[in-house]
């Protein structure tokens, strides 16, 4: 009897302790709401993606609760029940975004303000569609990593196509043309110098002609002044014929001056065109040279050429000095 009573006590104690530990441990691991410190939010969404029971609910990046229930609702909606700490302050006009939280298939529900929703049209439309106006929050699924990877794949494909087209456009012929352009730089420079020289002479001639024209006009004006002063007595002194003759001369000189001016203008136009072409060519060539492409570019931009030349001169100087100092080392004249 004593043995049986002792057994009763031991078994009863064991069962009570283990049951209490099991229930307590389960509630603790399940994060059960024992003190009523949890408030519940209902969310509806067309899809929940990879969200499952127990996934965290996050507000402003901080875990504030967990997903407690997922169920299919009416009209093809999915209804989620979120358990949040009662003390957590909800954002203004809250919506719920369901998104992958890592690359390992974990998802989370983010409670955020409607204003903070990313400006994706499909996402905004889904939020708008899920909005009820009641206590049920609107929810939507953000694209997960698989969808983003697919989009990235398409973008990389497009980039590859563009790169291929660039490669086609910048083929060997284009490279040869570029090298030819750089090679023609000296020729273009000489042409530019000649053009500038010619145009300079033209400008000298133009300025001389303009000066001559102005002198002629000045003479004509003087003569006209003389003519006007003599008009009064022209009829009495018989000098009218002389005045007419002078006027004719002045008119011819004016015509000549006008022609000279027209020629000067034409030459100036041509000069301007030539200068413009020469400057654009020089600009292109200098740009290529400045981009360190080709021999000229390397000559201009690569300091090693100067350094090597400088080094060569120094070595030559040293060699000459050494020859002066020790001529026998280099010149050895033997008669026998």
């Amino acid at each position: 009897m004593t043995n049986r009573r002792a057994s009763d006590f031991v078994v009863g104690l064991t069962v009570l302790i283990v049951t209490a530990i099991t229930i307590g441990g389960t509630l603790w691991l399940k994060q059960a709401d024992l003190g009523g410190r949890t408030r519940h939010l209902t969310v509806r969404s067309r899809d929940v993606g990879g969200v499952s029971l127990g996934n965290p609910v996050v507000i402003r990046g901080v875990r504030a609760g967990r997903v407690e229930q997922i169920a299919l609702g009416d009209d093809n909606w999915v209804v989620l029940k979120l358990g949040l700490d009662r003390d957590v302050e909800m954002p203004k006009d809250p919506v719920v975004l369901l998104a992958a939280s890592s690359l390992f298939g974990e998802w989370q529900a983010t409670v955020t303000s409607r204003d903070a929703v990313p400006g994706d049209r499909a996402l905004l439309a889904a939020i708008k569609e899920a909005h009820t106006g009641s206590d049920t929050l609107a929810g939507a699924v953000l694209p997960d990593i698989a969808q983003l990877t697919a989009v990235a794949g398409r973008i990389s494909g497009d980039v590859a196509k563009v790169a291929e087209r660039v490669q086609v456009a910048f083929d060997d012929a284009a490279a040869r043309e570029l090298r030819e352009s750089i090679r023609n730089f000296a020729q273009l420079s000489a042409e530019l110098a000649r053009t500038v020289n010619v145009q300079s002479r033209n400008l000298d001639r133009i300025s001389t002609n303009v000066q001559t024209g102005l002198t002629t006009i000045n003479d004509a004006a003087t003569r006209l002044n003389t003519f006007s002063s003599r008009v009064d007595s022209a009829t009495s002194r018989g000098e009218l014929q002389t005045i007419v003759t002078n006027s004719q001369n002045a008119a011819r000189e004016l015509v000549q001056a006008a022609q000279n001016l027209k020629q000067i203008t034409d030459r100036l136009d041509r000069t301007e065109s030539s200068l413009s072409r020469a400057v654009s060519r020089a600009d292109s060539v200098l740009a290529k040279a400045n981009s360190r492409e080709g021999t000229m570019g390397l000559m201009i931009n690569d300091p090693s050429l100067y350094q090597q030349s400088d080094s060569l001169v120094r070595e030559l100087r040293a060699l000459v000095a050494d020859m002066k100092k020790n001529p026998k080392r280099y010149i050895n004249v033997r008669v026998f």
Partner: protein
Amino acid sequence: MSDDTKTHTTMRDYVSAIGRTTRTVIAPIGSGARFVSDVVGAMRDVRTWLPEFSVHARILGVESLPIGIFIALFTGIVLALLASYSVGDLVPPYFVGTLVQKTVTLELAPVLTGLALAGRVGANIAAELGTMRVTEQIDALETLTFDPMSHLVVPRVLASAAMFPIVVAVAMLVGLLSGWAASLSLLDISTPQFLKGVRIFFTSFDVRYGLVKSASFGAAVALIGCRAGLTTQGGAQGVGRGATRAVVISAVMILVLDAFWAVVWLTNRTLK
């Protein structure tokens, strides 16, 4: 004897052979089912088996706790190291907690503890009842109109079915704690990380599944042990054979039941 008679006799022998084979296969199932039926029927005699219950619960359950704790202790450590070794840097470290929790709760604590207790409890019951059988104590009970089922079998079966989940629950707890300690000391996984992994996919179903499964293991082990003991023949050698048979069949039955519960409860079930 005419040829017709000879042919008829040969055919009859073939049919009889098929019948014998079928009976040989089905007879243990039938006798086992009848045994279970007798046990269930004897449960009505509560006044007889209830006083014996706590004694057997103590022997089969409470005294089996050290074995369960010992097994779970090392199982948790090995699981944590195996989880870390298997997944390496491919997944976050807190998945070690998830793997330890899921594996210990759903599978290893019930099955390993069940297999260990199959050896201890099954052999204990088979040897005890077998000895009573070969020493004609059971015959004496029957002569005195005591029902051996309600006196000997029912308290053992109920005690085993009730106490296996207790031992397994302790094993689950110890397995989780040892896995946590191993993660903390051997794997440089912090307590918050381990707890995050344990909690993130934890559902109360995990515990229910493991405990219900272990209760079925306990009932099966006790029933097999009792039947092996009651059918013992031939002295001490027969007792030994009965104990061995009880352990082997119990171990096989535990694995069969494990698969059965997995098919019944886990098929098409997700965390959602």
